[in-house]
């Protein structure tokens, strides 16, 4: 497994608030990396630096370097839109557009200039298949996406993200608003997808991290406390604070 994302001494400030403190890590490609840690420790913040969604929060300042595939994504030559096309994101709350199922998935490809009906049909089908939703919606693609259940909506959002053919998929607590069965489906989906995509997921559910991820990063107050193979981190944590956290003694 090679490194796809290389983060080096990253510091992030919201105004005067120091949200990420000297974060460095290598995220391997075609694997699932999980971020865990108590609420407010900066997991979402770090995730958003990877597709530069933090750019839109006024007063945010970033120091340090993030390289994706060897390119510094904060350098001038990098086009944010192209970066976001390559680094997809799934949010905590399912957020399909108030459009049809088809138009939701076709939204991204259309943005990036695909007009042909045949091509779009094909992308919509493969994306929905990849997101394990095709069977449930193939007969009513014209129906409003808002008529789907929460779990289906979240898989639709995954399909929508996959439709622009990203290399990396960021998932910010993508299952926290879902019931256990939908959660399981999305976990299985993540397992399937990791052969083709690099997945970085934030989760509050340690069992989830233990079940699905290859690497786990434990954060505390904006710092990386421990970063290692998931199995090792859960069975044999190096740091006392990690042990306290995973055994439920705080957080």
């Amino acid at each position, binding site marked *: 497994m090679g490194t796809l994302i290389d983060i080096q001494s990253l510091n992030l400030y919201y105004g005067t608030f120091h949200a990420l403190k000297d974060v460095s890590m290598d995220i391997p490609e075609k694997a699932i990396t999980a971020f865990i840690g108590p609420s407010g420790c900066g997991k979402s913040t770090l995730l958003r630096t990877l597709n530069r*969604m933090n750019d839109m929060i006024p007063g945010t300042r970033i120091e340090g370097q993030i390289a994706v595939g060897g390119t510094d994504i904060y350098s001038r030559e990098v086009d944010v*839109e192209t970066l976001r096309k390559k680094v997809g*994101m799934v*949010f905590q709350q399912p957020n399909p557009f108030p*459009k*049809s199922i088809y138009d939701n998935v076709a939204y991204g490809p259309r*943005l990036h200039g695909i007009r042909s009906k045949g091509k779009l049909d094909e992308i919509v089908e493969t994306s929905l298949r990849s997101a394990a939703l095709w069977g449930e919606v193939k007969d009513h693609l*014209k129906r409003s996406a808002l008529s789907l259940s929460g779990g289906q909506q979240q898989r639709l*959002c995954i399909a929508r*993200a996959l439709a622009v053919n990203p290399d990396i998929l960021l998932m910010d607590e993508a299952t926290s608003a879902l019931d256990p069965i939908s959660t399981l489906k999305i976990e299985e989906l993540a397992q399937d997808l990791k052969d083709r995509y690099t997945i970085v997921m934030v989760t509050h559910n340690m069992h989830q991290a233990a079940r699905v991820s290859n690497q786990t990063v434990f954060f505390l107050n904006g710092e990386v406390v421990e970063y290692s193979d998931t199995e090792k981190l859960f069975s044999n944590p190096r740091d006392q604070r990690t042990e306290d956290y995973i055994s439920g003694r705080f957080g």
Partner: protein
Amino acid sequence: MLEAPSSSVINNGVELGSSLKSGSGKAFDRKKRLSLYNKTFKVICIASAVFVCLILFTILFFMGRTGILTFDTVSPLTFFFSSEWAPENDQYGAFIFIFGTFALTFLTMLISVPLSVIIAVFLAEITPSWLKTMLRPVMDLLVGIPSVVYGFLGMTILIPMLRDLTGTSMGDGLLAAAIVLTIMVLPTISRITDDAIVAVPKKYRDASYALGATRFQTIVKVVLPAAKSGIMYAVILGMGRAIGETMAVVMVIGNTPQIADELFKPTSVLTSNIVMQISNVPFDSSWNYALYMMGFLLLVISLLMIVLVRLVQRKGVKS
């Protein structure tokens, strides 16, 4: 001395019990009270709904009852499709005014809707917040300006400008009226659209940006469609105002019964014609009835337009 505390305990117990009882009594009262409130509220709601419908039908009825007398002496065909309006010679063709009203409303909407949406997008999405807090109240103020004032502005500023522009003595007409109406409805439409845009949840924008959309793409493809019903509402309000507006139109349209086949040509619309003539017609003349009929027509047109827009809106929501 020994008994005192225990008796006080008993007393307390009794008090507690009785206070509970009175509490339960209160709860009962409360229940009754609540159901009374609910019932009263319901009755008031239904009563006001009935009242509003009643008013609407009464207006329709009285306008229509007098208006319909027109057709004792004038054939409906002549009234609706003839452009000969010469009441002195018993000619009551209202086509010019009907056409004028439609043309004026259409032209006004054609200019004002795109302009308002652009203004609203700038206001909601692009303007820095200190400017927003200044602009919004100013625009709300503009909504409340009496239409006569807009008429004056049109007469004293716009028409001379149009004369210079065309190089002729012509200025009054459809275009002048449409511009004045546009200025009048612009604050209304753009402020409501602005509110509709602001109400679009951030999560839609986030989803769009995260897929690599630019700000422009996000606004055009996600924000505006999501704000569609609010924008429709704004358009209905603006349109209602444009159809029914009288004073500002009278002052700039020229008030001549000739068909508005050019932008700079004095003409007349339903409202302006009614208000110019109603004060000096004999009470029970065909002329008077015809003016009532035109008022009735105005009413029906505005009702129809509202229904039409609602239908379009519903269709839009389904897709």
